[in-house]
């Protein structure tokens, strides 16, 4: 199944908040399966996508929504050698979020840097 030796730059672009739609969860599922292919993986979180990384997600039935909390999966990514997580600076600021609010360490990028990151990629998955 794997093309021997070929390593491409894969970017997972996440722009939607978790739980309201399935895109965040199913995007993460691709990252986890994709890890086995040992490609050069980055994750970018822009617009409402930054909420995917927010700490203290309360999703149990008693908390109100009764949906499985998958936020700790982002912490498990390191174990899959997926360590390059980028968030968009303006998106964070617009939502009153700082790095301390997030569940994993990230690199905060200005929009020109984010554009440069995208330019470098071979494959961009946008969910």
């Amino acid at each position, binding site marked *: 199944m794997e093309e021997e030796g070929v390593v491409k730059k894969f970017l997972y672009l996440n722009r939607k908040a978790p739980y309201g739609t399935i895109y965040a969860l199913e995007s993460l599922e691709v990252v986890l399966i994709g890890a086995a292919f040992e490609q050069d993986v980055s994750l970018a979180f822009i617009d409402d996508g930054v909420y995917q990384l927010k700490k203290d997600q309360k999703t149990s039935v008693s908390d109100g929504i009764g949906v499985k909390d998958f936020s700790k999966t982002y912490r498990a990514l390191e174990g899959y050698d997926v360590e390059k997580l980028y968030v968009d600076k303006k998106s964070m600021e617009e939502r009153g979020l700082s790095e301390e609010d997030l569940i994993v360490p990230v690199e905060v990028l200005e929009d020109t840097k984010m554009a440069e990151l995208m330019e470098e990629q*071979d494959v961009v998955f946008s969910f």
Partner: protein
Amino acid sequence: MKFAILVNEGPYQHQASDSAYQFTKAALEKGHDIFRVFFYHDGVNNGSRLTVPPQDDRHIVNRWSELAKEHSLDLVLCIAAAQRRGMLDENEAKRQKKDANNIAEGFRISGLGQLIEAGIQSERLMVFGD
């Protein structure tokens, strides 16, 4: 050029499937290769054998089946997304002890690895979504 296509939305709900189809068809007419068309999220619903859309408008599922047949396209529905949404082929239906299967002609169910492989093997992956 060798393209891979990713369709992230279901038929009729969004234009994604139409746009992907038009792109795929145009690319093939221009002599490009389509390595795979992968359906994810609600996109798996493009593979339903049971759609009965109004007769005076395009039949999105059949259109994909026909294009696949004409050009030997590999149309793949993601198994995880398909299971969530009740899209089962004969094997899956037996495995999951369900009393029906519903995959249309020309589509097959497989894992997300097929999407990653498509990204690796193609020169450009095109995403059609919301």
